[in-house]
């Protein structure tokens, strides 16, 4: 019976390690993307501010916009419905991969519900790079609601 227990645990550990290697997704800002030379096709989460004036809508719900972290910007392409509180100038996190042309093809876009807030990762990254301004949201990282999901996503 102990053998059986060890077997199950062993399998579980193998599964966990294997899954951790293959399925975790890193978070980057546009500046970090440039630094790290992330290869095309590698999935990651891109966070930053939606650059004002960069949002363009195309046919069949195609949208493109730019995500900026103050020192670098990256074009993002997405097809589908953006979350309710997606706004230019606001914080956003997109998940997807770079295409060979260097455009970030997002399949999921997450935006925050409360206008005074931005995603914690984005706030931290901006602070770290010294681009944090108080008017980005005095309540960043402060409380939002309770019991519910305060970040909102759209996924293709």
């Amino acid at each position: 019976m102990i053998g059986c227990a060890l077997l199950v645990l062993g399998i579980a550990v193998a599964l966990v390690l294997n899954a951790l290697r293959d399925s975790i997704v890193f978070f980057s800002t546009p500046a970090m993307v440039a630094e790290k030379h992330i290869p095309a096709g590698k999935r990651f989460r891109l966070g930053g501010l939606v650059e004002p004036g960069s949002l363009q809508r195309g046919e069949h719900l195609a949208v493109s916009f730019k995500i900026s972290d103050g020192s670098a910007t990256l074009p993002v392409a997405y097809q589908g419905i953006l979350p309710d509180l997606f706004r230019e100038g606001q914080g956003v996190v997109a998940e997807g991969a770079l295409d060979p042309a260097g455009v970030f093809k997002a399949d999921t876009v997450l935006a925050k519900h409360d206008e005074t807030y931005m995603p914690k990762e984005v706030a931290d990254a901006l602070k770290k790079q010294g681009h944090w301004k108080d008017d980005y949201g005095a309540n960043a990282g402060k409380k939002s609601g309770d019991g519910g999901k305060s970040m909102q996503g759209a996924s293709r």
Partner: protein
Amino acid sequence: MIAEAGHYALVLALGLALIQSIVPVIGAKLRDTALMQVARSTALAQLLFVGLSFLALVALHVTSDFSVANVYENSHSLKPLIYKITGVWGNHEGSMLLWVSILALFGGLVATFGNNLPLSLRAHVLAVQGWISTAFYLFILVTSNPFLRLANAPMEGRDLNPVLQDVGLAVHPPLLYLGYVGFSISFSFAVAALIEGRIDAAWARWVRPWTLMAWMFLTLGIAMGSYWAYYELGWGGWWFWDPVENASLMPWLAGTALLHSAVVMEKRNALKVWTILLAILTFSLSLLGTFLVRSGVLTSVHAFATDPTRGVFILLILCFFIGGSLTLYAWRASALKQGGLFAPISREGSLVLNNLLLTTACATVFVGTLYPLGLEVLTGERISVGAPFFNLTFAPLFVPLMLAMPFGPLLAWKRGDLLGAAQRLYAASGAALIAVAVLWAWVRGGSAFAPLAIGLAIFVIAGALTDLAERCMLFRVPLPISWRRARGLPRAAWGTVFAHAGVGVALIGIVCESTWNTELITTLKPNDVAKVAGYEMKLDDITQRQGPNFSELVTHFTVTSNGKTIGVMTPSKRNFTTRSASTTEAALLSRGPSQLYVSLGDAAANGGIAVRIYHKPMVLLIWFGPVLMAFGGLLSLTDRRLRVGAPKPAKTARALQPAE
């Protein structure tokens, strides 16, 4: 006035909790009946005062007293009454108050119904409850006082987060907390047993119903939360493997294991030490969940971030209770004698396997939830662990669990006959294989995954029914006798059947929804028709409407199937002015267990509107399964054996002898 009274009642409750923490323990040490009896009265008085405090906060919200910070930040005078009430726990302070109120409720229940418990055990259990309440009262009073006044009372409140203005909030957190906090009782019993250094079958008989009750509420709470997310967030997902969801799933997995190991302990007096450990772990995971959700350490889709003092405070509570109880366990567990030997192939053996798989699955969720946190602390690297991780780890562990599930109830205690059990499952396996073959033919060489998974689900359901048929000797004795046997079966047996079948039902829903779900995202103008999964949906009109505290863009869809109108769907987009936030209100149309789901996107320039339409086959089974499980739990709970509680006096004398 009301705010001050509520605050004062909370302070009084803290005082009572302190007395309850100390006096009964001294009483048990001195074998002083009067001192031990104090636990009962303080537990009831504590319930009274924390209840008053909670009612005071409800009253403040209902009367929109914006001089109280908590009301100002989370309410609005135009908000409908039901959301004024549910808004009480729709924020950090209020939900913590609900947490301790439910804790006091459980303490009160033990005090009321614990008459047939040995006096010293009851005193210890309630004292441990007192420790937990003391910690959380202090937490609320020091860091999260809901009764704080504002110097200058504003005229209007800031309104509740719009996503939370939904009936889901009325039901989900209270159910979840009844589950989370309910496990505190099994924890207190475990710690009390360790303090007393003895444990026996009567102990398990006491712990089981409390665990069962907590488990039942937690099951419903998680299912309700999942359904809420499904219809409220507007993109049709029902489980996100979000850390906050995982925080409730971990105690559920450990609690399910505890439920099963307590059976072994009650019936066979075996697995004692393990059951105690599970009871401690389950509540520790509940506390961990509270920490994760309340401290804001997680970057979560839920993002509950609050200030760090709270986080540090809960972390201290966490360390004290988890560290303390595990230390006590390490120190005292050897004093508990193991009993009841059994062969590996036996009912006990199968329950051990169940525990092994459930706790391992729980551990993988634990790793997936906390690994990003640990990595960030250590290296500063930010990662997210999402669905792919859990699909690769959690799912493979659940397959053997579900394969083994029908065998367990068919094996005898002590020494079972695996071959015999397998033979009795011929019919169930046959049904599963037929299902796989039919589905395989139907999908015509598509992915083999869905037919196999549904076959597994059918096997689990048919296996549960086989157990029932075996017990009433269906087809082996005349039908009326079978019927009589079925009616005479203990309700706990029926409970097992329902709960196990519920797992299978939920799996069918999960597999069908994720495999055959159809999605259409498009832009529609009035009178356009969208075709999804054989349904035709005509957009009739787009109109504006004014709600109490929001304005709303409403669309009407007429749904027809084969030329027949089957319903009208009215998805909308609400704009809440106070918070300048908007929400998407999806419209749902149920066809049997399947659903059509429509939610709105942005209005397009040409007078059209972006819509997202899903057809989700069998989706309702995902939540019907957990409801069946909880119903099974309820049946077990009403079993005469558990209702009566501790064994009859004649047996008690023998059963309560110290195990040393």
